[in-house]
């Protein structure tokens, strides 16, 4: 009995440390999950006189992707988004975050434009409302305008196939 106690304590510690080591501290759980997406109205990237608002997307399941031409990881993620847009499964709205308009437009010309529309958030205020702290980030927003998922960092093909697309499909059915 007395010999097994240290062993039990050790086993408990191993479990705790193991879980701690497997967690990624750079992925902070968003408090916005299952909450209404923060309201915004922004000038469109390609046409500053027109606006894009989250209420424009009511009734649709949509992806909200935060990107910038200065963001290296966005470049890595981009072909995946272009491919996804081509498949016409779910509309992708872009949030062009703290970027220069001309540089952003050139970036899309060079790499392809997967976005139905991009909002131009030059000061990053909308980004702050969405708790953006590392670009790219992607939100899945349902028909009622609730955030259901947040991807921090680039979307991997794995995450897209196993997490995001099944969720989108499920949300589209409701």
């Amino acid at each position: 009995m007395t010999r097994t106690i240290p062993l039990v304590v050790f086993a408990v510690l191993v479990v705790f440390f193991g879980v701690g080591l497997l967690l990624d501290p750079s992925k902070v759980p968003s408090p916005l999950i299952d909450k209404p997406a923060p309201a915004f109205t922004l000038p469109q990237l390609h046409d500053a006189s027109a606006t894009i608002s989250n209420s424009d997307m009511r009734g649709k399941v949509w992806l909200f992707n935060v990107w910038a031409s200065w963001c290296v990881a966005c470049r890595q993620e981009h072909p995946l988004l272009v491919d996804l847009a081509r498949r016409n499964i779910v509309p992708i709205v872009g949030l062009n975050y703290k970027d220069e308009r001309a540089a952003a437009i050139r970036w899309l010309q060079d790499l392809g434009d997967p976005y139905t529309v991009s909002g131009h958030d030059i000061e990053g205020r909308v980004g702050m409302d969405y708790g953006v702290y590392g670009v790219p980030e992607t939100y899945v927003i349902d028909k009622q305008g609730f955030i259901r998922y947040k991807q921090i960092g680039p979307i991997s093909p794995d995450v897209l196939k196993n997490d995001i697309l099944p969720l989108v499909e499920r949300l589209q059915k409701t």
Partner: protein
Amino acid sequence: MNRSVVSDAGSGLVFSSRAALWMGIVLGLCLLVTGRHGLAGEAEPLIADPVIEARMAALSEELRCLVCQGQSIAGSDSDFAKDVRREMRTMMENGRSDAEVVEFLVQRYGDFILFRPPVKGATLLLWLGPFILLAIAVAVLVISLRRRGRRAAAVTLSSEELHRAESLLKEKDDRKDS
């Protein structure tokens, strides 16, 4: 001074005069830059409102920079921290309280932005854990001490054993005396 260098240099004349020219330009630029700084007063935002700056300094030490997680919002030079500081300052200038500023940030970034997590269901173990561990340690200590005391009291020696112990003690004393 420049002229003396030039005239003494002899064969190095061309090089020296060019060096002197460059030195002059650099010095002139330095003066220009520092002079402009003095006139422009670039540090003004910091002393605009000492009360707000004091609140900023205190509060931003309590907040974690999510990009550079070891650092506070006050200590970080990342764009994220700058944005948060700008937002905090704007809110304070608009008369919002510290609690409102913290609430605004927690709504967006979660409790993780606080270095001191609030006491609630999910963090109860975090707050009480050390005390629970201390209580367990004290309990184990008390129990094992009592058990040891009981075991020591329970030992009874037969006369033979007593005799042997005495002779051993005597032997030791003898050795000490010699």
